[in-house]
């Protein structure tokens, strides 16, 4: 069987198996087992992919397969992956794997919870393997909808409000996407049989007047889920109300769908308009980066801190994508992966700390390093990755972005780049503020000494995420090369003008 | 050969009947009278069927059959409607249409 199909099949089968489970123990064993298989096969996919590439197979996408679905409209279930998709699939597998362990102690409607969670992940996998815009959009929606239930039912705080807001804003983005996708479908100069296949569409030309209309639609449509300023406000509310695993998955993976879509659909299919209009979005994303970082500095709720810093980091992803060159694109993908891992780590840790302290307000906590050394050290490592310490993944991604952004000579790009670069100082400020208030200092409350130490499933979750961060941080070459060579077709279209 | 009734006359009659039915349906508050109004409308339509059949396809009987169907169905419909009214009456002790507004926003 095609390994990509099994990437969709395993989660589906897992959800089916979950239907028959009854006790909490069974449910989480099945979920963990399924996602472990998924993680393993993602690693196998990576290995196979690298083998193929090493063997000289330089097709744009590998492991392709095509099933006709609605031939008269040109819709077919086309799958295939390039280096970017492989990397994103691996990221998804790590995050969902750790997400299962981070929600080990969910006891309310646990079966439904894990089913929704895995359905969501299925949508994400489908999104990354699809080559057909229609199917891709279908999976995109499949990933967004369970979010409503997950936040609305298992969330905390004003969860109905947050769920509604998040879903509605993402739906707004989807509405733009539908129009954009149909626009691309109808205006590309294909004679006869129309198609939704991205690669085929990419070989055809779309008139510039049409590109000008559809590029903003596609870019903003994907940008909403990528937390593009000013459409980012679902992020703080959504993340703070969502249960731990959902925050992890949402910030870690779903927000990356935005960046991925902007890069591989909006810019790939509509390059001329992207070149013309990039400046508008560069301004917006530049604002995202610095504005998100500054807004983080004064937050007191841990989840808000992480949500706003995600706005800043994901802003950097879109910023890099708009720099329209290979180096910056590589940086953007690296940043997606790196941010995915570390934000998942943060949300997992926040969940674990919250389950002990029963508060997320940092000014009400303190001295956790003394009582919870393992989790605290993990938090510090995540923080250091976030502020771009060499040897951890954030550094690799940020530096690649900055070098790429610096390839532009003109003053506009220079100034915006320097503004974006300066966010690293602000990042340091808010990370150290949190670490100082939360972990350091005297133990705030005597009852803290009774906290249970980190449990085994918590250790699995955090350690696997940290391992990912370290692997990328210490040996980035293979990953960055794998991403770079997949960017050829996107960059070539830009050069052609 | 009996001279045919001019079409205009027939149309005037059926239109009048139909709009009398509409007027009744819109203004009467009693559900039974509303049902009667509906029947008047149906009969106006029946008449139209019969006459148009005669004018357009003399010798064919489709229009007549159609009217018979409508009459049969109208009978069934009246039975159902009155059954609903009776249940309604049992529940709210009234068959005033303005009181039946449960299905609003």
């Amino acid at each position, binding site marked *: 069987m095609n390994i990509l199909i099994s990437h969709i099949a395993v989660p589906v089968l897992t959800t089916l198996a979950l239907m028959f489970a009854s006790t909490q123990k069974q449910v989480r064993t099945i979920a963990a087992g399924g996602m472990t298989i998924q993680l393993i096969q993602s690693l196998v996919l990576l290995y196979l992919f690298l083998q193929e590439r090493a063997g000289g197979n330089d097709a744009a996408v590998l492991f392709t397969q095509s099933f006709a679905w609605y031939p008269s409209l040109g819709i077919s279930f086309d799958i295939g992956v390039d280096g970017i998709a492989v990397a994103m699939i691996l990221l998804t597998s790590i995050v969902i794997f750790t997400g299962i362990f981070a929600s080990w102690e969910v006891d309310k409607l646990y079966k439904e919870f894990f089913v929704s969670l895995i359905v969501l992940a299925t949508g994400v996998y489908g999104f990354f393997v699809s080559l057909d815009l229609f199917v891709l959009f279908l999976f995109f929606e499949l990933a967004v909808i369970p979010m409503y239930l997950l936040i609305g039912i298992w969330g905390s705080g004003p969860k109905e409000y947050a769920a509604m*807001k998040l879903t*509605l804003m993402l739906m707004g983005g989807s509405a733009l996407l539908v129009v954009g996708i149909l626009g691309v479908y109808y205006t590309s100069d294909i004679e006869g049989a129309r198609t939704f296949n991205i690669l085929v569409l990419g070989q055809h030309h779309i008139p510039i007047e049409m590109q000008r209309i559809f590029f903003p639609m596609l870019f903003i449509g994907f940008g909403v889920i990528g937390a593009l300023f*000013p459409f980012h*406000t*679902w992020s*703080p*509310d959504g993340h703070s109300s969502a249960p731990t695993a959902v925050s992890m998955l949402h910030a870690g993976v779903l927000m990356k769908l935005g960046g991925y879509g902007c890069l591989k659909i909006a810019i790939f299919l509509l390059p001329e308009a992207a070149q013309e209009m990039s400046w508008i979005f560069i301004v917006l994303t530049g604002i995202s980066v610095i*504005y998100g970082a*500054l*807004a983080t500095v*004064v937050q007191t709720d841990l989840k808000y801190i992480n949500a*706003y810093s995600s706005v800043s980091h994901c802003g950097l992803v879109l910023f890099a994508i708009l720099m329209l060159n*290979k*180096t910056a694109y*590589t940086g953007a993908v690296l940043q997606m992966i790196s941010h995915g891992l570390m934000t998942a780590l943060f949300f997992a840790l926040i969940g674990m700390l919250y389950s002990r302290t029963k508060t997320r307000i940092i000014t009400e906590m303190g001295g956790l*390093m003394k009582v919870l*050394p393992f989790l605290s050290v993990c938090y510090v490592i995540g923080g*250091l990755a976030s*502020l*771009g*310490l*060499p*040897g951890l993944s954030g*550094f690799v991604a940020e*530096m*690649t972005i*900055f*070098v*790429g952004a*610096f*390839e532009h000579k003109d003053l506009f790009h220079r100034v915006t780049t*320097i503004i974006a*670069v*300066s966010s*690293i*100082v602000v990042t*340091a*400020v808010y990370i*150290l*503020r949190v670490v*100082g208030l939360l*972990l*350091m*200092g*005297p133990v705030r409350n005597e009852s803290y000494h009774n906290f249970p130490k980190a449990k085994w499933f918590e250790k699995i979750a955090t350690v696997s995420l940290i391992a990912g961060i370290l692997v990328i941080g210490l040996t*980035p*070459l293979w990953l*960055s*090369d794998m991403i*770079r060579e997949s960017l050829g077709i996107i960059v070539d279209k830009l050069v052609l003008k | 050969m009996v001279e045919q009734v001019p079409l205009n006359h027939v149309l005037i009659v059926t239109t009048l009947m139909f709009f009398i039915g*509409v007027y009744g349906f*819109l*203004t009467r508050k009693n559900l039974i009278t509303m049902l009667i109004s509906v029947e008047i409308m149906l009969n106006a339509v029946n008449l139209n069927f019969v006459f148009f059949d005669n004018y357009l396809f003399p010798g064919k009987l489709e229009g007549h059959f159609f009217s018979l169907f409508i009459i049969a169905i109208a009978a069934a419909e009246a039975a159902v409607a009155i059954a609903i009214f009776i249940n309604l009456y049992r529940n709210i002790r009234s068959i005033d*249409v*303005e009181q*039946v*507004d449960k*299905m*609003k*926003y």
Partner: protein
Amino acid sequence: MEFHYTIWIVILPFLAFLINGLGSGKLPGKISGWVATIAIGISTFLSYQTAFQYFTTSSREKIIAFKTVWLRFNDTLQIDMGILLDPISVMMLVVITTVSLMVFIYSQGYMKNEGGYDRYFAFLSLFSFSMLGLVVATNLFQMYMFWELVGVSSYLLIGFYYDKPSAVAASKKAFIVTRFADLGFLIGILMVSFYTGTFDFEILTNPEGLNFSTVASFMGLSTITWALLLIFIGGAGKSAMFPLHIWLPDAMEGPTPVSALIHAATMVVAGVFLVARLFPLYSVFAPTALEVVAFIGAFTTLFAAIIACTQYDIKRVLAFSTMSQIGYMMLALGVSGYGGEEGLGYTASLFHLFTHAFFKALLFLGAGAIIHAVHSNDIREMGGLRKHQPITHILFLIACLAIAGIPPFSGFFSKDEIIAATFVNHPIYFGIAVLVAGLTAFYMFRLYFIVFWGKEKTYDHTPHEAPTIMLLPMIVLAIGSVLAGFIPFGHYISSDGQSLTLHINWSVAITSVVIAVIGIATAWKFYKTESDLSAKVVKAFGTMYTSASNKFYIDEIYMLITKGIIFRWVAQPLAWFDRNVIDAFMNLLAAITNWISSQIKEFQSGQVQKYAFIFISGVLIIVLSFIYANQ
């Protein structure tokens, strides 16, 4: 010529870090200290071996001992990880490993009864690893990476006592200030690499191979000058140059051996090393930037020396003295030319870096021994310690004489060369350098007399001499402080790789020694015995003294800018704006939708007749409009 083994110099401390870090809390007894010490011991041995081999056999060219691609950005730019051996990196290897080894040994005694022993040695090993990686970097970006790692290990070590709020604040401050400076460094790197297409030092330090004639200019200076100025900001941040110095005095919150290693001997001179590393670039293409270096150096050296005279915390006095001495080194680099006798300042600067590492580390370790005995940092609570700590007393005195520049101690030789370098063309800098030499002698001996002479204070328990394991490294460093000056330094290190014979300029030397002696004599007069002389002088200076003892209120200005302006007037309004404008706008959209639907919901009244009426009206309208449209 094989130098492959040099990689172990860097890797061994990293292994020690891994062992101690992962095994933290599980390792038996005090084994972590020995793991770290043995690792750095082997590194030290290898460094000496390298130095010996390098200086005896090669002709001072750059040798790449090891190199591998770490990350590729595009077709031209890539980050390598590697080891570059040249005179200054070999010299730095020797300095770092020596001081590290001494501090590691010393720490085994000093930290014996502290919690977090494993963690301490893990961090210390991490620091040594990063610092060694920094000096052997083959390219700017590798240097930047280790630069950041050094910053983080410094952060971790300053905040070692993490349950002490002041330590947490200090570590945060140190990291953020240097991070801010690193921003300049990073942008500078990006600019330089943009124009040269490389990060490699081999290309960057070869002025013949570079051409910046096409480079644009900005505000009257060529962009390359701007780039080098930005890089210097990075160096200034790490080396605590004015106005980025504010973190260094606070950094003294860390354990004292850490201050000795990081905040006196090694990390803080990274800025000097950076400028020295890129010296050909500065000197040939951006003399303006070099003038700025000289100015900042001169200003800082005077500024810090003045403050040092007014402080009462023993470690802060030493911290300001460190700043002042680094200012000296920067000044020397700034006034130096490239090649031949012109390059005297360059050699002098690195010479001073070399000697300073020994005596400043010794001073800090001595201070550590004192604090260990007295349990206080305040020199007003010390006095007459020479009776209780005779060996520490002698060692401290040696270090004081060395830093004051009294022959034949090492500080004399290096400082003399710096003053000589300023003597030729820069009369103002010369004046400042001589003045600071006097001030240095004064504040060091002020410290010395108050602590070791003065009136004996009442102590909780009688101060005791430090244990052997702490004294031994101090003795080694003291030997270094005495002898380091006799090394024919110019023979090994010079701006252009040619041997440079250093000779003492007697008119300069006599002036500086006389000034130093005056400084010492004043300190003797003021502080050897209790007298009210110093109080009178303080009174005479009035406000000037107050502002100096408050460090010229620079900290307060920073607090005003960061907390008062950026925090309160930028970040908080932004957060408010996000919640109450942007988010409110989104909520407004939802509210409008809600309002519209509540307005039109009246149509859904539940009245069958209303629906029918609307329906029929609609049909009529459509029918009528068709009829009229077809006419």
